């Protein structure tokens, strides 16, 4: 068996929008989940790399065959490129953690619960060989594990492709303990895109700009301040007010999230429901939407009240949980997961 020094444990959050890694050597990195290959020799000469990741890939997208492999929370099928993109993204993340020569990498990869549910074998095949041993877990479970939130807690992980709900009952979560909605970050982006286009038909903007605007200014309820963004109109940078569009787009999350949260709560053993209500944690990028936790608390008020809190460090929470799992898993179990 390898000694501690010969091993690098890593926790990876393989997200639809962003992917993060934390490692037992203390390193942590986040990249946007884009993978791009130069479309031809000319493009390759310009970008000077055989493959690009994250922001760099996004910025060079006209010259790349660009892939965002976990769209809608699922690994895209029928496309070898998307499977290769998952693999390359993981390889890239592990390389960022900088394992020393000869050091074995034992990785826990958190994926959207839906990906695990629908294309488990596909996912396993796609990630085969990227680490010396590898374990795949659902993202909300990794978050819960990292926070020691294993009993009477509900995790609502609002990602880009999906929102995953998971009730931790002191056991490894089963199907009954989980729910997934496609009402998530990407759906909000689509709504916002449509609304801003309708309000400012003369302005030019891309879905990537919309995403950035939402991440910086997303809110539900009363606006703290007007939301102003800049986009070109007839080639001239112009200030646009998108306050009401932002609110409307973000608030599309409130009804389905509230409904699902209450439905899942109603299935918890009656004597524990109150405790779970007091322990609802918001994770993922969507947890940063201002006013969302208050809106969900309002929904809980109808069933006796409760507390909804965004977790700290939502970008790395899944990866930190993955690392905790990696470190806690016994060596003999890792041996079973090799290859």
């Amino acid at each position, binding site marked *: 068996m390898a000694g501690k020094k010969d091993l690098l444990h890593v926790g990876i959050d393989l997200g639809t929008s962003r992917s993060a890694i934390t490692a037992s050597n203390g390193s942590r990195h986040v990249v946007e989940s884009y993978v791009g290959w130069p479309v031809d020799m000319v493009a390759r000469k310009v970008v000077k790399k055989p493959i690009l990741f994250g922001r760099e890939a996004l910025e060079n997208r006209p010259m790349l065959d660009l892939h965002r492999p976990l769209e809608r929370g*699922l690994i*895209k*099928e*029928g*496309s070898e490129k998307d499977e290769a993109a998952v693999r390359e993204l993981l390889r890239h993340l592990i390389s960022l953690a900088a394992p020393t020569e000869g050091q074995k990498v034992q990785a826990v990869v958190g994926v959207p619960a*839906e990906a695990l*549910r*629908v*294309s*488990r*074998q596909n996912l*396993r095949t796609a990630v085969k060989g990227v680490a010396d041993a590898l*374990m*795949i*877990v659902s993202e909300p*479970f990794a978050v819960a*594990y990292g*926070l*020691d*939130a*294993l*009993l009477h*807690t509900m995790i609502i992980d609002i990602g880009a492709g*999906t929102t995953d709900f998971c009730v931790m009952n*002191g*056991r*490894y979560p089963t*199907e009954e303990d989980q*729910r*997934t*909605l*496609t009402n998530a970050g990407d759906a909000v982006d689509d709504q916002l895109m449509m609304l801003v286009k309708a309000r400012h038909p003369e302005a030019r903007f891309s879905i990537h700009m919309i995403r950035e605007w939402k991440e910086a200014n997303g809110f539900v309820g009363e606006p703290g301040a007007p939301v102003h963004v800049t986009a070109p109109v007839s080639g001239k940078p112009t200030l646009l007010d998108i306050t009401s569009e932002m609110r409307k787009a973000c608030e599309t999350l409130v009804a389905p999230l509230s409904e*699902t949260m209450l439905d899942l709560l109603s299935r918890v053993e009656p004597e524990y429901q109150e405790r779970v209500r007091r322990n609802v944690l918001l994770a993922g990028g969507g947890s940063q939407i201002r006013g969302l936790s208050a809106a969900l608390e309002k929904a809980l008020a109808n069933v006796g009240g409760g507390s909804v809190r965004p977790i700290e460090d939502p970008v790395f929470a899944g990866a930190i949980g993955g690392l905790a*799992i990696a470190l*806690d*898993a016994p060596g003999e*179990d890792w041996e*079973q*997961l090799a*290859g």
Partner: protein
Amino acid sequence: MLSESFGMSELEKLKKEILRGAIRENVELLDDRAYIERRFWRPRWQWRWPARALTAAAAGVVVFLSVNAISTGGAEKPEVLVVTPGTAAQAPLAGLHQAPRAIAPTLFRLEVGKVVLDPGHGGADPGASAASGLVEKEVTLDVARRLRALLEEARFQVGMTRADDRALALRERVAMANAEHADLFVSIHVNSIPQKEARAVETYFLGAADGPQIAEVARIENQGSGYSLSDFRQLLDGVYAGVRQEESRRLAGEVQKSLFSGLHEANRELYDRGVKSAPLAVLIGTEMPGILVEVSCVSNEAEARLLARTDYRQRIAASIFQGLRSYMDSREPAPRTAGRKTEKGS
């Protein structure tokens, strides 16, 4: 967080227990591939239903085929054909098609190893659509993927006629299912009917249309089949009349029962439109027992909203899966002595 109300040693114990679940799931996932390959890999021809009988015969095993049990109405004792290794080796496969026979399926165990799923429509053919923009081709693909995951978890081999958004003629779907040598074929569709208030599930197996409405369903589902009229005649002749139709009917019954009970819990106004027979091209051409399931009505606004939810689609997949399991479980092997009583000669 947990340590506020929990001692550290209890927390460690709980973590260990929960971690064990995660590890077990991953080890099983790793084992699955090897297990499936070990258990289900056979020479391709062995997957074919008619060929299985020949395989057994060639190995020197006496196979009992009850001849025309349906045509005799079951009143007479089934005649038994004894196939010797010599006759089996000479018997052309085409001959079996020319003289369709009803094989009592319980006379020998026909293990279901491989299921081919056929998500309806795709590519430029979106199928039915809801006012909300939800389209049939996306729902059928999503349900098929979920069903595949459940089947693979239960260690079945699964083939898909399409795993992404592409257009396929019915003829191509049939060819793929036959090339995969599947044991069962499940085509997944979403209904759209003129009665907008109706929420319903129904399951079809191959047969004559049960009525004018069913003929209309067949006409719609057969569009773009890639078959000519003369092909249809040939296909109908080639239907392995007895056993495949009977097995398909039983399969349809189990799936419909499970689908309705599984969905009714979440969709109280759901109507059970039952099991029906129809001359659907995708079922005529396939060589194994097959069904076409209409999993919901996208023409109903409320049902379309339900279909947009992943938990409802998961419920559909789980219900079809349960139906398939019930069908498979009902296929008990016959007692060894059952055939000997009617054996003629040796």
